[in-house]
């Protein structure tokens, strides 16, 4: 008896919900979703305002503005302080991408088109797991385990490609310098250099690029693939003529996601790299490079006043840099989308 009562009650309340609640649910949902959308804007705006606002003391005290505005003695130059870190950030991220993209594409294609189904599932799971490892752990692994292992490789590269071949002496600017300048210089152990940091960064961005590329490759229209096979294409030709062109914009988007992570990565760089502020391309040399994010992390503990403001200014620069790179990525994706 009581069960029927309860059933009746619940059915009637359900119908009330359906009748009167429908509108309420709809409006609640639309408020929630609009709110969430706005929240993103607000958060972004809050960060931007914070960065800009807190950078003002550094801007006012800088060589670029202080001499201009008043007679105050300028403490530092914003450009010469920030530029080497921008260079270091971009170089590290670019090297990481250069290493990670080919490997990621290989893994993604293997999973989507070559591996047996069960193996593909397992492999995909492992890649996702790799993405979940915190960067501190990567930093520890890189700093303690990987760096000593890389030493023989670096020495070899430095002694071979780092010295030979060289540009002919009559070439201006670089005459007599090694052609592969990346490996030149004078590395000293332990190899806490940009190359080590980039390798660890590459490992970190690998799962992101792989996961996104894999999803895109799996979306390739089955009919197109089968048509290619019917025309006598080998599996490699199918990949080359159907899968890759179809997935190109997706791969670009994936790489940009990876680049975003590489640009902003702090902990791993901080723990591996022995920093320095120069524009050197010698990635095996220690104490030549530093990324913006790692510099902020290493200096913020003891910074106060204008020094803190200066660090926040570099944060603003990184913010803008990431913004620009995202815009470029969107432009590339949009353009290639139109083409196909």
């Amino acid at each position, binding site marked *: 008896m009581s069960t029927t009562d309860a059933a009746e009650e619940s059915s009637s309340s359900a119908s009330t919900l359906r009748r009167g609640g429908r509108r309420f649910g709809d409006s609640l949902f639309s408020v929630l979703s609009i709110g969430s959308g706005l929240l993103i804007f607000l958060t972004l705006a809050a960060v931007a305002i914070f960065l800009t606002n807190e950078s003002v003391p550094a801007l006012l005290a800088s060589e670029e503005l202080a001499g201009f505005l008043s007679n105050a003695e300028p403490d530092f130059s914003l450009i010469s302080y920030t530029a080497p870190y921008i260079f270091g950030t971009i170089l590290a991220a670019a090297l990481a991408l250069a290493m990670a993209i080919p490997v990621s594409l290989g893994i993604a294609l293997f999973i989507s088109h070559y591996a047996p189904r069960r193996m593909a599932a397992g492999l995909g799971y492992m890649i996702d797991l790799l993405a979940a490892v915190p960067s*501190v752990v990567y930093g520890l692994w890189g*700093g*303690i385990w990987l*760096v*000593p292992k890389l030493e023989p490789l670096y020495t070899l590269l430095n002694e071979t490609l780092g010295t030979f071949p060289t540009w002919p002496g009559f070439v201006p600017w670089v005459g007599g310098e090694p052609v592969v300048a990346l490996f030149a210089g004078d590395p*000293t*152990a*332990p190899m*806490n250099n940009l190359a080590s940091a980039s390798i660890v960064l590459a490992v970190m961005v690998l799962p992101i690029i792989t996961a996104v590329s894999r999803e895109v490759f799996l979306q390739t229209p089955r009919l197109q693939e089968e048509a290619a096979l019917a025309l006598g294409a080998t599996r490699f030709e199918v990949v080359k003529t159907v899968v890759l062109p179809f997935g190109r914009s997706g791969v670009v988007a994936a790489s940009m996601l990876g680049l975003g992570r590489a640009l902003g990565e702090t*902990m791993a760089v*901080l*723990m591996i790299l*022995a*920093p*320095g*502020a*120069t524009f050197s391309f010698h990635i095996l040399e*220690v*104490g*030549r490079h530093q990324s913006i994010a790692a510099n902020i*992390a*290493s*200096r913020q*503990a*003891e*910074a*106060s*006043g204008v020094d803190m403001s200066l660090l926040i200014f570099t944060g603003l620069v990184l913010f803008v840099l990431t913004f620009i790179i995202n815009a470029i990525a969107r432009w590339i994706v949009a353009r290639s989308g139109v083409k196909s």
Partner: protein
Amino acid sequence: MNVRSNKIASLAALGLVGGLALTACGGGSSSDSGSGASDSGANGGYAELTGNLPGAGASSAQAAQTAWTETFMGLVQAEGGDLTVTYDPTGSGTGREQFLTGQVQYAGTDAALDEEELAASTEVCNGEQAFDLPVYISPIAVVFNIEGVDSLNLTPEVVAGIFAGDITNWNDEAIAADNPDVELPDLEIVPVHRSDDSGTTENFTEYLSETAPDAWTHGPVETWPISGGQSGDGTSGLISTVEGGNGTIGYADASQAGNLGTAAIQVGEEFVSYSAEAAAAAVDASPREEGREENDIVVELDRTTTEEGVYPIVLVSYLALCGSYADSAQGEAVKAYASYIVSTEGQQVAAENAGSAPLSEELSSEAQAAIDAISVG
């Protein structure tokens, strides 16, 4: 990195503190039991202590502060009190800032409060000035990693020359002259510095600039002045960099030196290895900084001393306290905690956990007198 996560944790804790501190204010039933705490231990009169005591500051003294807060809270609890003492290693500058804005009740700092800060302190210190007490003396060791070399004698000029980059090989004559018994290899010297801003760097460079001004021309600095070269983030980062290379040399808190070789430094005619006693002797041999209040104990380290058995590369970390606390519960808690820190027992705890050098009895009793003079309520 745990510095950063601690920061978040203690921020959260601070939020709680706000609520609890209010409760603590109401029940501030305090007698003058606080000063009795100097008699270290059994009858500390800790039973009345309640509430929260947040502090922040230098990361150099973090290990010692952690040991102090934990053992002190244990003592209080054993007597039936309920006090939570926290220390947030935000760095000296931030710690002083938070202290002067009243966010924390005490601060740890590698540099004593300056005149401006002392003047500003009256606002949060119930009308009286804040003051500094030396509580943590830590020798800075010159550590090296050279295959086959266990001991080294170095003069200040040689140390400065190495870190300035003028002496570049271990078989340099300047090094060999003081090490007749050591077979020095033909090996490149790799100096390793701290990549982050650090009180250790500041004390080390201050030592170099005072003892070898010709070889070290960069002055005392918190940020390593020479671009490039090997470095490590934090003491542990520096140690692992020194360990990871061959022919490396660096400077670090002596308690963290581990298995690395440590150099004996020339003082007067002798070469002195670091030890807790030699570091404490350096502080004792140094005069007090002039122009400060009686209770504001700041040591002007005499780096150029030639006295026997003194190891002059030391870092002194201070405790900044208010001369007066409006909230009596908090005031009593501060007095009890500070008394514990400067007591023989507290200093022993720091020596065991952080490898610091205990304060001399004279300094300890002077500090205790300054703590007793804090007015409460």
